[in-house]
């Protein structure tokens, strides 16, 4: 042990001294031109996400330089996918917590160990609401096989804490065919209608606590299946980005794609699990359930393309994007940052007091202190105005008209509360005289002008098409990619010198992403390193 410690101390001292000498020799603040080996290493790290192998480096000894041919070879390699994926993960943050996928209290199968540390077998699975309504507490079943009486009813045991608990049964779960898991017997029930007449394949049934998870636990999510769905949603998102890049179509097709790819996990999720959200936000997956096959198992890894309705627009209306960014403002904010290089950022000034009369202005576009961002953010958010907050439901104009008489008047009837749909999607009560004209309108239309109303109707697709027509996407794409490869923003001088040419070339290439990467990777500045 002491020998290893001494050895490491020698190494660290020598390295540190060597590093100081190295830094002094090169000189901090200088720039150095990379030789062909260093340039190849930089390209490999950036485009493949790893250092080059010795086998890749050795041929470079025999050539005079690394340039276009090597960059072309890398861009043609399947490994370039590493760059595409990581770049867009960093750009769009596509991930979602498993608890966003279903209502965790209704249909999330938790291991007993989460709530009952004293139990012997911690792995038996239970659902919180079943415990609450059937056992009398947020508790799992007891750690013993389930027992039934002569007529087939479950036998419960009274526990000192006042709860009653049945045993577990073994079930073959949909996420691991050919294996079994221990599941509390109540959760393993397969009836499709509850004892009080509610459909067990809907959130209402599970909310009653009187339903089980169905055959093979199909309408409950486990930690394993939740991870699989999470990963599949991210994979779906990245496939949508990669497809136009690999097929040498316009990079921006990923913002306009009508289809989406589904594997077994996502087909199962759309069919059985999306309805387990407590509100109608998830009941209409992008691909209608009626069009999904019924014979694809959850574990099927193959991806098939399915058409989505016309309101959909590439990654911007995927389940993942809509759940990751839960409000129309958040959705617009990420997109404007990533693709317009236009963050909503207030200037460094003092905000007015909340008691200042101008702070009572209900329209955020005008309210002092808020207007700096919201005068631009509200019109931007309007594009997502017909996609439910905290959900994926599209508020189709036929089902959700701009104005609802019911929702406009419901607040005046103290005996009958406003319907859920009104509370969720419509503006039902004015808190300020300026808001009164908007009572009964969709929330997205409050304070909107004619242009915003068009945006609400046109959706994200309209935004992308307008931006493409105006040529406003290319400049930001070039800036972002330049920054990624150079590890710094483009300087004003560089913008002035290169941007027009780069945009012209990118447009002329039909927005070929690989061609743009190549162009930037062959810039002389990319081959120089600042120390």
């Amino acid at each position, binding site marked *: 042990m002491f020998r290893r410690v001494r050895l490491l*101390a020698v190494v660290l001292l020598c*390295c540190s001294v060597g590093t*100081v000498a190295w830094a002094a020799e090169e000189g901090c603040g200088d720039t150095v031109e990379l030789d062909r080996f260093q340039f190849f290493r930089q390209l490999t790290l950036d485009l493949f996400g790893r250092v080059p192998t010795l086998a890749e480096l050795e041929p470079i000894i025999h050539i005079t330089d690394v340039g276009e041919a090597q960059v072309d070879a890398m861009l043609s390699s399947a490994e370039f996918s590493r760059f595409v994926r990581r770049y867009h993960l960093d750009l769009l943050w596509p991930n979602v917590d498993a608890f966003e996928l279903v209502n965790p209290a209704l249909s999330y199968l938790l291991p007993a160990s989460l709530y009952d540390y004293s139990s012997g077998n911690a792995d038996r699975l239970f659902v919180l609401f079943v415990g609450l309504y059937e056992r009398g507490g947020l508790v799992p079943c007891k750690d013993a096989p389930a027992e039934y009486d002569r007529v087939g009813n479950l036998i419960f045991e009274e526990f000192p804490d006042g709860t009653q608990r049945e045993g577990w049964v073994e079930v073959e779960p949909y996420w691991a065919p050919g294996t079994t898991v221990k599941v509390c017997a109540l959760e393993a029930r397969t009836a499709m209608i509850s004892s009080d007449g509610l459909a067990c394949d809907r959130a209402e049934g599970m909310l009653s606590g009187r339903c089980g998870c169905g055959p093979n636990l199909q309408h409950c999510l486990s930690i394993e299946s939740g991870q699989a769905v999470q990963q599949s949603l991210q994979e779906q998102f990245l496939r949508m980005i990669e497809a136009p890049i690999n097929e040498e179509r316009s990079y921006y097709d990923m913002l306009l794609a009508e289809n989406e790819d589904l594997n077994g996990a996502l087909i199962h999720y759309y069919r059985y699990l999306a309805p387990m959200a407590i509100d109608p936000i998830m009941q209409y997956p992008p691909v209608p359930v009626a069009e999904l096959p019924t014979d694809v198992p959850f574990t099927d890894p193959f991806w098939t393309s399915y058409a989505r309705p016309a309101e959909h627009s590439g990654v911007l209306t995927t389940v993942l994007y809509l759940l990751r960014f839960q409000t129309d403002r958040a959705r617009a904010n990420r997109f404007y940052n990533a693709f317009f290089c236009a963050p909503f950022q207030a200037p460094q000034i003092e905000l007015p007091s909340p008691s200042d009369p101008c702070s009572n202005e209900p329209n955020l576009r005008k309210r002092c202190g808020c207007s700096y961002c919201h005068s631009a953010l509200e019109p931007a958010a309007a594009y997502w105005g017909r996609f439910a907050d905290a959900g994926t439901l599209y508020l189709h104009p036929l089902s959700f008209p701009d104005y609802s008489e019911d929702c406009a008047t419901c607040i005046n009837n103290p005996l009958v509360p406003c319907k859920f749909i009104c509370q969720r999607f419509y503006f039902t009560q004015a808190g300020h005289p300026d808001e009164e004209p908007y009572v009964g309108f969709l929330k997205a239309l409050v304070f909107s002008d004619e242009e915003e109303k068009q945006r609400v109707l046109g959706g994200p697709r309209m935004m992308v098409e307008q931006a493409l027509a105006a040529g406003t996407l290319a400049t930001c794409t070039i800036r972002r990619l330049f920054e990624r490869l150079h590890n710094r923003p483009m300087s004003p001088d560089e913008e002035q010198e290169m941007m027009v040419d780069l945009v012209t070339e990118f447009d002329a290439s039909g927005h070929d992403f690989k061609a743009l990467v190549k162009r930037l990777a062959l810039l002389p500045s990319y081959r120089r390193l600042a120390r």
Partner: protein
Amino acid sequence: MKWWWTSLLWVSVLTLGCSSGSSKKSPDLGGVDVPPPPGDVIDPPAGPPARNPRRLTIEQLNRSLPIVTDGLSWTEDFGEGEVNLFEVLASTLGVPDYLLVTEENLEPSLIVTKFLQDAAQRICVRWVERDKTLPLEQRTLVTHVEWASLSEVDVKTSLRTLHLRFFARYIPPGEDDAKVQAHYDLFQAASGAAPAGAEASDGWTAICLALMNEPEFMMY
């Protein structure tokens, strides 16, 4: 012993900071080099426009270590099979999950330096032990004929290949190079302090540790 370790670690981190080219003097910290706060304007380097250096991401590091060591990763077995510690420690090391962490901090931080040293200690011992049992054509660490040789010519031959492998630095055969010389000096220091029979093993372990902790490996 503790202050000794801490001092060495700091020296390493601070020199890494210099090589990033993005550090400034902070009078509040008594002149200690620290990265500028976000949004601070960084003086552009002298000379023509260039790319700023960056630290390898944890993903790049995790993928690169098996390449330079011919298949060895930073793995441990805690009784339930081998696990990759870069994956286990991903959140500690700042790998973004795009929910709570959306950007990987690529400053050469103390914690990444510390864990890379841990990784190097685990990998290097395995690499040396494996390499010395292999025939010449299968070796990736010592690429001269006599594994236990301490001769300057032999050691420098292998060091040249290792520089290509780790840093993509090509040094033609027979050419002198200051950095290879520095590593040869390290080899000598480590093998000279080793017990009898372990000279070459200790020398190459020291080289492996040094190469993995070099800023030239971690930065690009």
